[in-house]
């Protein structure tokens, strides 16, 4: 389980996370929604330990990772996979090399085994025959799927998705959501998805948390969030211009 307790984080005196507390249950898909610029990606980076809070604690499986030293973090990162907003593929490597890289560096598999596993991972995300392409030759949707294949390859227990469908057309968007659902059913990992895709994200999530002004305003099942009377949640999921969320 992942537990965030009273997280505070500021950049140049501007508070991004302001006393945020959140519990993410194991083996479930938790979506974090909220207006742009509210610190959703910052929240993910705190969960995985890429950022340290100014105050507060992040617990992963009962361990306080905020107190850990740099070299201790590798042990925690073994549990994680992450799909970055822009996929963060290594741009000097081909698709095959990108996906094979963690296997080559962290396992003792033979070349043939690595090749089979990479092809299998790429096929699982619906990609074939693009082994020799470089990331800049791929569309946004393909990059995200390669990123997902790479994130899944070492069977992590927790996968974080930073806006996995932003900027993609509705069909690709649905395909990626389906892919997350399918792989989650197959591997049973704990997923945290940051997304703006309302209401599509409700279809694949077990829990939804609304982030606003540096705190979790409301958290519940997709149905509970849909029925929420909280004015911020109501305005956000209806996309209304009227309400407490100011867009200027």
């Amino acid at each position: 389980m992942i537990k965030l307790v009273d997280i505070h984080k500021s950049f140049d005196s501007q508070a991004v996370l302001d006393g945020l507390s959140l519990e993410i249950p194991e083996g479930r898909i938790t979506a974090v929604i909220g207006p742009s610029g509210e610190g959703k990606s910052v929240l993910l980076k705190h969960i995985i330990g890429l950022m340290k809070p100014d105050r507060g604690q992040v617990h992963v499986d009962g361990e306080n990772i905020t107190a850990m030293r740099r070299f201790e973090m590798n042990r925690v990162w073994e549990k994680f996979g992450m799909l970055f907003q822009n996929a963060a593929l290594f741009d000097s490597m081909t698709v095959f090399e990108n996906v094979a890289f963690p296997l080559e560096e962290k396992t003792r598999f033979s070349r043939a085994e690595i090749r089979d596993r990479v092809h299998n991972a790429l096929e699982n995300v619906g990609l074939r025959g693009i082994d020799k392409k470089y990331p800049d030759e791929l569309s946004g949707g393909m990059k995200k799927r390669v990123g997902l294949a790479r994130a899944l390859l070492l069977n992590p227990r927790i996968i974080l998705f930073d806006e996995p469908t932003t900027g993609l057309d509705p069909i690709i968007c649905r395909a990626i959501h389906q892919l997350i659902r399918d792989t989650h059913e197959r591997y049973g990992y704990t997923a945290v998805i940051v997304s703006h895709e309302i209401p599509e994200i409700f279809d694949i999530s077990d829990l939804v948390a609304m982030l606003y002004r540096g705190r979790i305003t409301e958290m519940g099942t997709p149905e509970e969030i849909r029925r929420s009377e909280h004015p911020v949640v109501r305005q956000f999921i209806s996309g209304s211009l009227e309400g407490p969320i100011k867009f200027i």
Partner: protein
Amino acid sequence: MLRTFLEKLGAVTIFIFREMGRMLIFLVMALVNIIIRPGKPFHIFKQIHFIGTKSLFVITLTASFTGMVLGLQGYYTLAKFGSEGMLGSAVALSLIRELGPVLTALMVVGRAGSAITAEIGIMKITEQIDALKTMALEPFKYLISPKIVGALVAVPLLCAIFDVVGIYGGYLVGVKLLGVNPGAYFHEMERSVEWKDVWSGIVKSISFGGILAWVCCYKGYHASHGAEGVSRATTEAVVMSSVLVLVWDYFLTSVML
């Protein structure tokens, strides 16, 4: 007025000391990783190829013209004292002790150092370094340490090539164009160049390789704010490593003379 000045002075001083501290920690982390997690030889050979082999053309070109200029200048200066025969000695000592290591380092900074900063900087701003961390792959092991080891190996080798090509550049101008006796050119060189001179050149070029790789990797690793940030980091890396090479050269020369 005075308070504002003192505040700014204090802020600049704190910034300088913080930056120096961060650079030192970065160096220690790189060295620790070189020792305890050296990584696969392939990554190091790749860097030796990138820093060394790919710099050969520019090093050969620079060395030949440096040697030729030394031959030309040296000849006319020595001719005033009737000592043209000392040309080989003057060219060789200048190159082996000073110009070889310094110019090799400056050329490598320009060709490979800037590329190292830009590469690491782009990886930083596009979250590729974060991606490495989240796969529990230590960025120092894959990105930084191989580059530092690569530079430590490649720069002295390039320097040796620089010295040899430069000496033949001086030979071309001094002997073939200006008529210095070829036997005198090489004999004087052999007589005046000692092992101590060669060693000082080797020590200098190894330390210059370490300095340039350290500074260029550090600047790239801490690049931020998009393309402009990478461009700024690259400029800072080239300027800082060039200046540090020259300062360190003075320090080493004063110690080793």
